[in-house]
């Protein structure tokens, strides 16, 4: 139950309902992000076009270099 609540809290906090400093700034952790020259952490992702699952590691294996831009509609 506790972990279910934690996950619910995480979803609501990460997908914050308004842009305000107290809601967005805790997520800004670029200075703690993975270092250069090391392998980046791998995660499951889903393709927008067919919703199929793919791992980030499968994506970067496809090309000599891979550019990933993070963002959203808003």
């Amino acid at each position, binding site marked *: 139950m506790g972990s279910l609540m934690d996950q619910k809290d995480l*979803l609501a906090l990460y997908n914050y309902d308004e842009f305000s400093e107290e809601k967005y700034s805790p997520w800004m952790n*670029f200075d703690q992000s993975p270092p250069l020259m090391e392998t980046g952490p791998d995660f499951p992702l889903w393709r927008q076009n067919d919703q199929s699952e793919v791992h980030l590691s499968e994506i970067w294996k496809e090309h000599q270099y891979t550019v990933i831009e993070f963002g*959203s509609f808003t």
Partner: protein
Amino acid sequence: MNAAADRFASQGIGSYFLYTNEAHPGENYPPLTSMVQKFRHATALRDVYGVARPILVDSLDGACHRAYGSMPNMTWIFSRTGTVLYKSDWTHVASVVDMLEYLQKLPERRKSGARLSPFQVQRVEYRESDGNAFYDGLARNGQQAVDDFARTFPQSVPKDWPRE
């Protein structure tokens, strides 16, 4: 970024857009509460903003986004083995292109006999920002997005926005 992706696509460089959380939620694009909604917003991004690169969607709790620092519009470049070669806390096309051109010169340098050793560099770059276009985007998200940003950064509202 679409043009840069097209330019480098034939040269072994893949380009993707990874869909995260809504940075500036509004009435038209509210906070995400389901993957169905997240896919719908990602499709709108493709259709409204014309993102031609393949779009990948992160989990609803943003596991990947959070692990990479959670910035709203950052760019990362990986090698084929997943080594992080470039990371920028904001996406700036000229900066990305500069790095890709640099990477493309490496084989030629090696071919010419240069012995190359990697090192890291950090520097501050500057981009131009279009306040009117930014606020137009916020308005597209909904009035709440405009109000929230203007309240958080009152000096950011362009004097001539909204334009007639």
